[in-house]
């Protein structure tokens, strides 16, 4: 026999009541300690995650600066050598003219 709507509603009402009176278990101090241990772990891994890009940017800045210094020095040295070459050429030309 199909149960009546009233019977189903009465059971639903009982289930709602049973749900409402459920008590929460007491959470202990060791539970709080465990949560805080994970929170601190999260905090330190977040700090590390933030530190790595910062360090990478710093390292990249230093590398770029050093590269500029090296390139600048090479260019300056090359320019000095080129000046010396021209000077030598004119000196040699002068010498040749004097021989004539």
């Amino acid at each position, binding site marked *: 026999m199909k149960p009546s709507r009233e019977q*189903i509603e009465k*059971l639903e009402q009982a289930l709602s009541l049973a*749900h*409402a009176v*459920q008590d*929460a278990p007491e*959470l202990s101090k060791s539970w*709080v300690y465990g*949560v805080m241990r994970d929170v601190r772990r*999260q905090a330190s891994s977040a700090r590390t995650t933030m530190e790595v890009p910062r360090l990478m940017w710093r390292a990249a800045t230093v590398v770029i600066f050093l590269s500029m210094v090296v390139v600048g020095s090479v260019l300056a040295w090359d320019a000095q050598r080129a000046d010396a070459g021209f000077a030598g050429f004119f000196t040699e030309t002068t010498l040749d003219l004097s021989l004539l």
Partner: protein
Amino acid sequence: MTEGDRRTTWGGPEDEEIIRRVLAGEVDLFVELINRYQQHVGRIVAGHVRRDMVEEVAHDTFVRAYTSLSTYSFRTPFSHWVATIALRACYDAWRNASARKEVPLSGLGDEQQQWADRLLATESHERFEDLARQQETRELLHSALNQLSPENRMVLTLVHLEGHSVREAAELLGWSTVNVKVRAHRARQQLRKLLEGLLRNSP
């Protein structure tokens, strides 16, 4: 409402200050939020997961609350914000348990049928309430809820057992109102079918 109640229940200035200081790097102050809201979270979680899962899910709730603390807007009370995190943690716990097939799917047994008959046979309101508060009714409730999908279970608990509106349940779960409405209807039909089956099989 006293100043203390407002602080504890509605996330007044002291909660705000703690949150700002935690965000500024004073991580150890988070323990104050745990102490203030552990009962609140424990009650919510206990209403949605098995008793042996409560500690783990409440733990997960607070770790999630810490990791997403920077998204807390300070416009809603902290208690409400942490409640949404707790409910989503409960839902994820059921989804994981269901994926790992840890949810017992056995039908409602003979003992539960007899218990349902006893409940229905009671004439006085006091006796009915007394029976409804007993462990057997809770077992019947859990067996019935275990037959539902994690989504339907969450919606049924929020809307039909706790009396939240569809809109409130949608906000708490972060789902659309249409989704919650459809699921609320389906879940109730499913529960009614289970209860009908239970009563049909009774001697």
